[in-house]
């Protein structure tokens, strides 16, 4: 049918290109942050993430201390290789950087291009080659610590998991190395410290009961609304549809007060109950719509054979409704995992019981505002789980969406 009429090659091309552009536009924001989460802090500020595969020019300072000064006539000469000097040796351990420029003052660290000879502050000359070898001359004896050299080097891209390790343990690379030198393993650090790993575990703790419990309650209710006859059924269904759109904002103040009065307060128990309540209308609505569509013959046949409603429900309806149960489970999982509002209100506000969304929105964005590598890593720690669930269970999610919107 594609080629009957109205379809021609140029239109096909236009469609392909438009879709490609839209997909790229939709992906760019995520890809940008994702790439940045693997980049070093200095590299992030020095060049955009779209240049991540290329070398970045960063400026460094060091002292020419890898060789002892020697005297030739009036001149003192220091010769060596910059990449071997004390202050930067660690940064260039891999050894594939090249120097683009150098200088002798901090104000102008890239005054001279690599390979050209510059004048130094002691009245002598300084020559630095691209490969890092330098020659420093001076009429006076140089500083015992070695003369200062500034340089700009094209540093090859350096992708690390360092940001992730830092955000998970709340310790910088140096602090981690120090603790590990004292015998702590990475796992100890994960569980010990105030890192985001704890919030990650909290998110799981909130999410799983909040996903499992409403399913059962809703399934029984949905069966009653779908297959049992009783007065007021239509009214109840209408009420469920109405409750689907009640803004959660209404629930916050009265329910928090209620929780405080009955002694639950701000706690995990409270948030599980809240999520259960808030998830029920969608669960009942989705499951009822699905169960109504199950073939009447099976259910009536079972009734004729003497099955009770309870048996019909557990032995026939529940197994047949698996796709709908899965759709709702995914929905509820994504929603509770990604929720900020309910967690902010119903969980205690100390660091130890925050979930990830709250930790990122309330702490990290404030305290680590400019530290993009860290922020990006935190974001992807929190995004990873729902995205994996999303891509593996997309089939059920789509089915749920189609059934869940009021038609």
């Amino acid at each position, binding site marked *: 049918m594609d080629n009957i009429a109205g379809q021609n090659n140029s239109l096909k091309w236009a469609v392909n290109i438009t879709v490609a552009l839209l997909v790229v536009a939709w992906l760019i924001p995520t890809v940008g942050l994702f790439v940045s989460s693997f980049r070093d802090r200095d590299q992030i500020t020095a060049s955009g993430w779209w240049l991540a595969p290329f070398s970045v020019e960063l400026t460094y300072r060091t002292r020419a201390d890898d060789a002892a000064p020697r005297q030739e006539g009036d001149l003192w000469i220091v010769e060596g290789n910059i990449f071997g000097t004390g202050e930067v040796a660690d940064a260039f351990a891999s050894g594939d950087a090249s120097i683009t420029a150098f200088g002798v003052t901090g104000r102008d660290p890239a005054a001279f291009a690599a390979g050209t000879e510059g004048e130094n502050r002691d009245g002598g000359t300084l020559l630095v080659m691209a490969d890092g070898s330098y020659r420093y001359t001076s009429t006076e004896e140089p500083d015992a610590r070695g003369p200062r050299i500034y340089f700009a080097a094209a540093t090859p891209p350096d992708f690390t998991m360092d940001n992730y390790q830092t955000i998970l343990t709340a310790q910088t690379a140096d602090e981690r190395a120090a603790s590990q030198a004292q015998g702590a393993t990475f796992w100890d650090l994960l569980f010990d410290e105030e890192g985001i790993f704890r919030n990650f575990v909290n998110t799981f703790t909130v999410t799983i009961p909040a996903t499992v419990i409403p399913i059962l309650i809703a399934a029984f*209710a949905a069966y009653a609304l779908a297959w049992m006859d009783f007065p007021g059924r239509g009214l109840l269904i209408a009420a469920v549809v109405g409750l689907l759109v*009640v803004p959660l904002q209404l629930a916050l103040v009265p329910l928090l007060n209620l929780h405080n009065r009955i002694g639950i307060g701000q706690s995990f128990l409270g948030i599980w109950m809240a999520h259960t309540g808030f998830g029920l209308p969608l669960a009942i609505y989705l499951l009822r719509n699905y169960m109504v569509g199950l073939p009447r013959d099976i259910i009536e046949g079972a009734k004729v054979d003497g099955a009770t409603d309870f048996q019909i429900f557990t032995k026939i309806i529940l197994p047949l409704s698996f796709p709908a149960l899965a759709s709702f489970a995914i929905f509820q999982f994504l929603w509770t995992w990604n929720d*900020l509002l309910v967690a902010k209100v119903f969980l205690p506000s100390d660091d130890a019981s925050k979930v990830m969304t709250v930790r990122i929105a309330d702490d990290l964005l404030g305290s680590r505002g400019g530290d993009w590598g860290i922020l990006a890593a935190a974001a992807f720690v929190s995004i990873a789980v729902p995205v994996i669930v999303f891509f593996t269970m997309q089939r059920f999610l789509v089915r749920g969406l189609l059934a869940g919107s009021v038609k």
Partner: protein
Amino acid sequence: MSPLFQGIITILVGVFGCVGYFYAANLLLDKVIFPARGPNIGRNINRATAVRPWLFLLPAILALSVYLVYPVVGSFWRSLFNRSGEEFIGMDNYGALFADDVFRQALFNNALWALVVPAAATFFGLLVAQLTDRLKWGNIAKSLIFMPMAISFVGASLIWKFVYAGDPDIGIINAVRDGLGLDPMDPIQVPFWNNFFLMAILIWIQTGFAMVILSAALRGIPEETVEAAIIDGANPFQLFFKIKVPQIMGTIVVVWTTITILVLKVFDIVYTMTGGNFGTQILPSYMMTLMFRDDGRATAVAVVIMVVVLPVMIWNIRQAQKEMR
């Protein structure tokens, strides 16, 4: 007791509690209260059948009443009291709100959000759904555009904060401006237009939702109508606007209203991006700034949100009832 352990116990108690309740309640009904034997067997079976639905519904009705029905009443009642909740002040909280510049701004911005986001998300969703309909790699394209649905609003805000960053070496928008020779700017602080930059985030998320539903609707269009139009010489645009769109109008309205309701509830984006500063306040985030400080006013804002949602709610119920008949 660690929360994780507590969680496992809660799952066990919750699941077995539910199963136990339903099982025991049924047993009690059938064997003890209305046993299907003895002189009144017929009457007993009928009564048991009449009671059973309510047994099945009881936990759900209880949970819904406490967590959704009671709050509607409770919030309205609380909004009639002052900050401490001790003194009845009638509609004064509402009066104070409407006299408040920030609230009026939030109301205006919310109206903008409710107009722009559903329109744009539905438009892009429809566009992608139609374009990918007969594309070989259409499913991959749809998956990728759908993906932001899985990302939290907080995560999405962070992603876009990075896009909007003022440094041309970080934010791609300013990198483009830099490339064109323009000065870097902070999109989040541009008066009025910053609202639209925030809306872009929600549009980015919701387009996938619109696309999935509309794509299914497009697939559901009877082939004969399309074939007939092609035979009659309709060009692709006529085919789309005059044949396809009218047939899926119902679904478009559904998508539109669903996103509208969502827009009226989302506070996360404004909260993380600007905290309501720079004239970007909307009602849900304004409520959060009042929450824990002045519960009377906070609940008043919540009630205003409810009133705004109410027409959609009524319309939804009507539709659902029509569908059931």
